[in-house]
Each structure stands twice: as structure tokens, then as C-alpha cells.
């Protein structure tokens, strides 16, 4: 058996590669006889192969643990995160936070994240070294349900030089999943920090649709998205981020389906050509309306102005 203190002492001496190899042997926690609450760990030798990254192998090992042992590993990881020192190898720190993303330590994650981010934000040299870890830390922090503490951490991080567009996108998705009804507020909150519309990644658009609940809000469009992401970006998301436009979110019901007109704005109504363009977008976004339905839709588009139009 090896105690946690001994483990940490060893980690301090070892290179990143060595510790990952060590971890890859598998970590299993077991109670010391007579001390069931101890953090004492037992390392069970497991497979080790260059054919697979060590952390992945560790995960395989953890899969074999029973529930009690698994909980002990999560506690041990929380303590490892809290034991961060500025002299640590950044790749090792990043590896530990990668584990935190998957294992979700039961306590202390935001405190550890705050500690690390706070220190490196005040020190350029540390910032340069550990900036590579911050995105993983954000993913780990956002792996938990939303809390005030989490909001404060993200708010603080947003004001640092460590903030990136990828973090902004990740946080938007997290907030939307927490409260779908406010999805537009969240997107707007980060609009300035997101990439320019033309450069928005396809994956973000897709995940945003899923987070919002594509079937409800973007009925039809969600399905189309998989075939033509750029189309969706052009018609739905780009105007959101265009400062001079306003997203009105007009809902249109046709039969049992609800449509949301993506980008209708006052100035657009004055231009028949643009109106036609949006109609075209609506039509192409789902199953094309035919016959009477198409005619009614044409009338609806021609008379746009109300926030909600029902066609039964």
C-alpha cells in the first residue's frame, strides 16, 4: 500500500511522463484496516501500452473499480488538484484536470480552479506556462450544474487575459443547457467574445441547437442543420450576432409544426426582396410547404408584423 502523502511526494519528484505512466497502472483505493476513512491508496498493476494514452488506460482501470473505491479515487483527485504548485509541470497539471473533467471530483474543484487561475493571471511568466491548462479547467468547472460560485468563477475568468473564444462558446452552451428559455440572452451576453459570424464553428451551431431544443424552437431547421450547417449559420445565427439587426423569434405554426422565423427585422419588411429571401429560408429549412399550405405561408410572410402567427 502507498499513502496519499507518499504518492504526492513521488509525484513531486517525477516527470510528467512518469506520473502518467504511474497513473496508467491504475489507481484503486482501499481502506487501511481499522481506518475506513483513510485516503490510503493501493495501486493495482494494470496494462500499460504506448498504443494508448495513459489517461485512457487509467480510465479503463477505473471502470473496473467498485463504487466505494471509485469514490475514494475522486476524493484523492480533488486533493491532487488542490495541491497544485507553480513548479508543477503544466502538462501534468493539464492531465490531472482532464481527469477532473471525467471523474468530477466531489469537492474543491472551483476552489482549486480559482487558486490556479488567480495566481497565473497575476504573473505573466506563470500565465505563459499554465495558459494551456485553463481551457481544460473551464470544461471541468462547467462539468457541474450551474451555481453562484461557478458563475463568479466564470465572471472573474472572463475579465482576465486568459479568456478565449472557445471558453465563451463552452460557457454559452452550459448556460443554455441550464436555462433554455434564456438562450438568446446568453448568446447576446457573449456575442462580442464569440468569433465573427462567418467563422463560427459548425459544431457550436449544432450543439447550440441541441442545447436549446431544436425540435421545439427550430422545428425542421434542426434536422436540416446536419446536412447544411452553413445554411443554418447564414440564416439563423449570423444575424443574431449582427449588431444592427434584431432577432425577433417569431413563431409560425403550420399544422402541428411550429416554425421560428430566424431573422425578421423591421427594416427587412420594407424590402420585398429580403422578405422573399426569408420566406425562401423558411421554406427550405423544413419540409417544403405545398399547395394551400404554401399559399397561406406566402400570405403570412407578406403580412409579417405580428410576433406570432398561427395558421391552422
Amino acid at each position, binding site marked *: 500500500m502507498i499513502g496519499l502523502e507518499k504518492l504526492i511526494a513521488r509525484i513531486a519528484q517525477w516527470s510528467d511522463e512518469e506520473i502518467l505512466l504511474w497513473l496508467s497502472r491504475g489507481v484503486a483505493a482501499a481502506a487501511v484496516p481499522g481506518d475506513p476513512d483513510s485516503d490510503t491508496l493501493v495501486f493495482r498493476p494494470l496494462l500499460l501500452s*504506448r498504443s*494508448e494514452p495513459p489517461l*485512457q488506460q487509467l480510465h479503463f482501470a477505473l471502470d473496473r473499480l467498485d463504487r466505494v473505491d471509485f469514490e475514494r479515487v475522486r476524493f484523492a483527485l480533488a486533493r491532487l488538484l488542490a495541491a497544485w504548485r507553480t513548479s508543477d509541470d503544466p502538462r501534468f497539471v493539464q492531465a490531472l484536470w482532464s481527469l477532473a473533467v*471525467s471523474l468530477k471530483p466531489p469537492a474543491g474543484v472551483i476552489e482549486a480552479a480559482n487558486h490556479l487561475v488567480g495566481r497565473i493571471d497575476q504573473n505573466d511568466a506563470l500565465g505563459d506556462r499554465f495558459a494551456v491548462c485553463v481551457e481544460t479547467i473551464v*470544461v471541468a468547472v462547467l462539468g457541474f450544474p450551474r451555481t453562484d460560485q461557478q458563475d463568479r468563477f466564470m465572471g472573474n475568468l472572463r475579465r482576465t487575459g486568459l479568456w478565449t473564444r*472557445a471558453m465563451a462558446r463552452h460557457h454559452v452552451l452550459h448556460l443554455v443547457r441550464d436555462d433554455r428559455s434564456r438562450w438568446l440572452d446568453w448568446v447576446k451576453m457573449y456575442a462580442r467574445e464569440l468569433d465573427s459570424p462567418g467563422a463560427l464553428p459548425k*459544431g457550436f451551431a449544432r450543439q447550440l441547437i441541441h442545447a436549446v431544443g431544436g425540435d421545439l424552437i427550430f422545428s425542421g431547421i434542426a434536422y436540416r442543420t446536419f446536412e447544411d450547417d452553413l445554411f443554418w449559420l447564414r440564416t439563423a445565427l449570423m444575424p443574431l450576432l449582427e449588431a444592427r439587426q434584431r432577432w425577433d423569434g417569431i413563431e409560425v405554426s403550420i399544422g402541428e409544426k411550429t416554425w421560428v422565423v430566424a431573422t425578421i427585422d423591421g427594416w427587412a419588411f420594407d424590402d420585398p426582396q429580403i422578405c422573399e429571401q426569408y420566406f425562401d429560408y423558411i421554406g427550405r429549412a423544413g419540409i417544403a410547404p405545398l399547395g394551400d399550405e404554401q399559399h397561406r405561408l406566402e400570405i403570412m410572410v407578406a403580412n409579417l408584423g405580428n410576433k406570432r402567427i398561427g395558421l391552422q
Partner: protein
Amino acid sequence: MPSSIDGLTDLLCTDVLGGQEILVNIADGLDDGSIDPARLQLFARACLARLDQIDRADELFETLARNAIMSVVFTPPVDEAGQSVSLQYAAMIEASDDHVTTFMTLAKLRSLVPEPSRLAAALKEEMRGELWSGSDPRFINDEMGRAIADIVNEEGTESHLHLSKIAQNAVPYPIWITRSTTSKAILDKTEPQDRATRMRDWLGLGYLDVGSPLFGFQSDRSLPSLRPARLGRPTVWDGIDHRWFKHRRSPHSGDRWGRTMDFEAAVACRADCDGGPEAVMPGPAFDEGFTCFYVGTVRTVPMPPTPHVLAALMASNPPRQIARLKQRVVDALADRP
């Protein structure tokens, strides 16, 4: 600590994780000439030197000893003339006209993606944040698997993707390849949902656990066109970090490639456990005509190495004995000055 070859072989038999399997594979390599006694001598001496540094009373001795032996292979020992001697690629073979395929998990693929690069950015966006940043990229759906393969094909060349990591001495780590025609035949006759699992078992990829997505990389160029700097039948040294490695193969193979351990055959205790053909070569660049394809997701846990691997290595008619194989290694070492 063992101070003699006898002591080392004893240690392999009793105190090293997977040590008996290493011993049997060495003996089989000696028998068919894939391992020459001079290199084995060098290996044994280097192992003894490394093992001397480990405290026998350490509670982790079994694992540390295996690590020490692996490190001998990964950091080549130096011979009496002061030259470093690579233990990998010990059994070189000529490049045949085959087209080749290599398989890897999403975790492995992710570890190879250069950062920053367009490929990394596109994959990061395609995969959920947890999948990319976490340590457990498993259980993706087939749609995402195919999307990832498409992204690799679109961006792999531009982003200078290599199919193995490049060591500090600028030499690519080995990749394990199989013949495309053979692997395709196996895939074609397997139901789509079982293909990744079957490929894992057929190629003896024991590190592929349940839920692992499997990706194939197939080159449209034949081996001679790929111009591998080295091409070898894998020996125990190439597979030193792989507890499912098998050297011996059935006498009907008809080529010089190695044969993996087929898990289905091993679990069924069949005498012939030959899986697919395998060879090792330095990992090429993706732009050498490679196309990535998504095979599927592994649906079962792998065959545990103990006790099946040793049983499969020993299986023959008449049965082999570990003591005799150990003596075979001792004798080979004793023949050297």
C-alpha cells in the same frame, strides 16, 4: 536483486507482471531466429542493471520491475563498443506489395492531433467539450464517428497529421499495420455493429475497452510506395508494453509477417490462436495516401491478459512447459561470451 541471468529468468517467472509471457515470447523468438542471442544478452544485462535500482521491498516491485524492463526497450542499451542498439525492429522483413491499414482509438487519434491546427480546432468543435478535454473519449454515436473521420480526411494533410508520435530523436514511434485486403474481408463479413469488436479481437488489441470508437487508416499506396524506413515482424521487444503479444504463429502462415492473438480463439482455448497479420513500421504521415474511416464502437470488454495469454502461448500438442522454455533462454544467453 538478481545478479545473474538465471536470477533474471527466475524473476520473470515469479515477480514481474506478465513476466512469464515475456519469457515464452523470447524463447519463441529465439527458436525461429527473430531474436538473436547477442541482442538478448544486451537486453538481459541492461535489465539487470535497471532492476538493481529497485528496492525489492517496495510494495510496487512487481510493476516497477516491468517498467524497468520496458524502459530498456524504449531507451536502447549500449553495446561494448559504445553503440546504442535498438531492440525494436529486431526481425526486419521486406516490403511486400500489400496495401496496409492501421487502427486506432479516438483517444489515440486525439493524442496525435497537432495543436494548434485546423484539424484540432475542427475536432474540438465536433466533439463535446468533455470528450475533447476529458480523459475518456468513449461512447460516441456513429454519426459523430463518421463526422470525425470526415474532418480528419479534410484537414489531416493540411494540419500535418502523423500516424504516430515523433520521438525526441526525430524518429517516429512504430505503428502496427495489417494487410488491407485481409482486414477488409473480416470487416465485410461482420455485421456493422460488431465490426469494431471483431477487429479488436482479431488483431488482439487488448487495450480497446468497451465503448472505444475505432478508426481505420488505409493507404492507397502499396508498402513499397510508402517506403517504410524499417519494416519488421514484431518481436517481444516491439510488444514489450503490450500484454497480449504473441510471437509464435501457426506453420501455415506463408509469409514473414507476425500473427496477432485472436481473442476469440484464445478464450476458446484453441491450439491455433492466430489472428491477423501484423508488422511494425515507423508511423508515416497522413498525407502518404491515407484515408480515415470509422469502424464503429467496441461493444464488449477485452479478454483479460491473465490467464488467457499465457495459456494461448503455451497451447500446442504436445503441451509445452514453462521450465523448458526458461531453460531455452538461459542456454541461449550462456552461449554468449
